[in-house]
């Protein structure tokens, strides 16, 4: 799928005299405005796009984009150590934000929310370590959500 679409895009771009793949900074600007789902879809377009989306900084931007204040220093190294921003977003940030929005609760304060993401993320990372039986690379491996965060998952309507 990806090759033909990529070719089409490139062809169209050539036709319009604006191949997007030649302007990485512009591409990144656009990708920065996407939501999580679209970003994941974008990763499927072609290898180049995939390598950009794979980069954690896009996801970092996504996580903190709604907040008014920039995250404190040091958060990045901790998050990278625990599994990266993409995982943080998928496993903690998106479910937490959507649940809290749905509850329409009074805001708990941005720093509290960030603390909550990180607490849940650290538990999740630890559980993966426990569950993986200490297999190498336990911190980054696997796509399955650790059990402790299952309560954040929505039910599947079969």
């Amino acid at each position: 799928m990806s090759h033909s679409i990529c070719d089409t895009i490139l062809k169209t771009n050539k036709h319009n005299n604006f191949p997007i793949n030649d302007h990485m900074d512009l591409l990144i600007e656009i990708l920065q405005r996407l939501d999580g789902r679209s970003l994941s879809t974008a990763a499927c377009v072609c290898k180049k796009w995939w390598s950009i989306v794979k980069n954690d900084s896009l996801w970092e931007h996504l996580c903190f984009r709604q907040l008014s204040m920039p995250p404190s220093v040091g958060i990045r190294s901790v998050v990278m150590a625990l599994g990266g921003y993409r995982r943080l977003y998928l496993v903690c940030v998106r479910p937490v934000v959507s649940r809290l929005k749905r509850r329409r609760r009074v805001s708990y304060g941005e720093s509290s929310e960030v603390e909550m993401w990180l607490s849940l993320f650290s538990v999740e990372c630890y559980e993966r370590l426990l569950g993986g039986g200490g297999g190498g690379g336990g911190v980054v491996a696997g796509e399955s959500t650790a059990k402790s965060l299952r309560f954040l998952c929505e039910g599947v309507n079969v």
Partner: protein
Amino acid sequence: MKREYPNQNHPLFNTSSSASPSSSVNLRPDLPGKSKMFDEFNEQDAGVDELLAVLGYKVKSSDMIDVAHKIEHLEGVIGNDDDLSQIVSDSVHYNPSDLSSWLESMITEINPIVQQPVVDTSFVNDLQAIPGNAIYPPTTTATKKQKTSVSGSVSSSSNNQNSIVIVDSQENGIRLVHTLMACAEAVQNNDLKLAETLVKQAGILAVSQAGAMRKVAAYFAEALARRIYRLNPKPEQNSPALQNLLESHFYETCPYLKFAHFTANQAILEAFAGKNKVHVIDFSMKQGMQWPALMQALALRSGGPPTFRLTGIGPRTFDHETDHLQEVGWKLAQVADTIHVKFEYRGFVAESLSDLEPSMLDLREDEVVAVNSVFELHQLLARSGCIEKVLSTVKEMKPEIFTVVEQEANHNGSVFLDRFTESLHYYSTLFDSLESSGSGGGAGHGGGVVVEGGGGIAPASDQDKVMSEVYLGKQICNVVACEGLDRVERHQTLTQWKNLFDSAGFESVHLGSNAYKQASMLLALFAGGDGYRVEEHEGCLMLGWHSRPLIATSAWKLR
């Protein structure tokens, strides 16, 4: 004297053969000495049928024929109703009291598949000592059954081949509670014959209930039966591997443990502000789930992380594998390593916390100590002098903060009936909350259910919920069926703990607003979120379901 169900003995019924296609009960037609019992039956009756009277129905024996006919007729009507027969034949039965032993065998087989055997509910057999066996088949379609309300019917069988007419009515629920209480009272008065009869009635009534009430009633009835027949399980027989498995499912399914960990961590974090060397002594090490979050918070605090030392105390594990406490320490060390927190760990095996001496712990001069205990202290109340010894040991450790999380209930009264009543209310509330949070996404929010990406994994399944229920069921069994040193689930209220700590020389440290915020946010994330309540009470935080507080976190320091 064994009393069979009155309808069955009546000669009129043996001829009837309105067989419904979906019979899930087979009454043995070959009971010996039937005619003799029939005579007995007639003789003993002085107008009102005894068995039904216990249930609360006053039916004259002379009217029994009539009643039986009506039930048969009802049976026929319901049998023709396709929906209902479908429901009855589709229900899968499993046996709550057998789950414990099933789980034990599951651990050794390392086979995670849940088997749900269909149990033949022939409850004629009066020789069944524990009514839990085969009498209450909780069905997965219980909620559907609630809709079929046929008022005033007796939930009994009228014929050899008919299925149970299960009816859910409010009155049966109230009667069930009364029966359980009456049974407890009989046990307290040592009237074991009456208790025996009542516990069986409770078993039958429990079948007519649905959801949380059925399960709670089943566990309590089983515990009562164990008490009556003196089949008390010894707490040492609980294999730690099974306990860990059950507890980890409990951790996932509902917020109680997470609440405990997050609030205690917040208090510890605040106590450690500005300190460079910190030492946490954890009385409730288990799987160490509390500590990654604290380490992460320490890593991110302004000024950088301190040197973090953790001493974990736990019971001996009987595995053939390596030392469980050490394993947990290794994993925590890995996490600490990745987030660049200097970490030191020591695991201590102690069968009872009172065995602990401060000299064992290598307390260092320049370190700030925090002591943490989650659901551990109440066990010490079983032996006199134990809790005082542990509290004085804690004092010798000179902790900056001592965080305690305990169940908020008085299950340690000296009068059995009071304990029973209290625990019935407590665990009913707890099971209620499980019902809603178990379906992780079902009850909590209105509107459609959305499939989320990022794993798209099923929420806390029924299996998780069942494990959590077994976990709680063991506690129920201990509170009701055990005595003396075996009874370790001696919960006390926060007020009682406060008095204890006050007299031991501790004073309360108020948990700040941060802890409250974290707790509220956590609860908002759980599916049953609206039912959970955080309350602040004199500086301590309590998590409850609707208006009933269930667990309490408090923090203490030396006066």
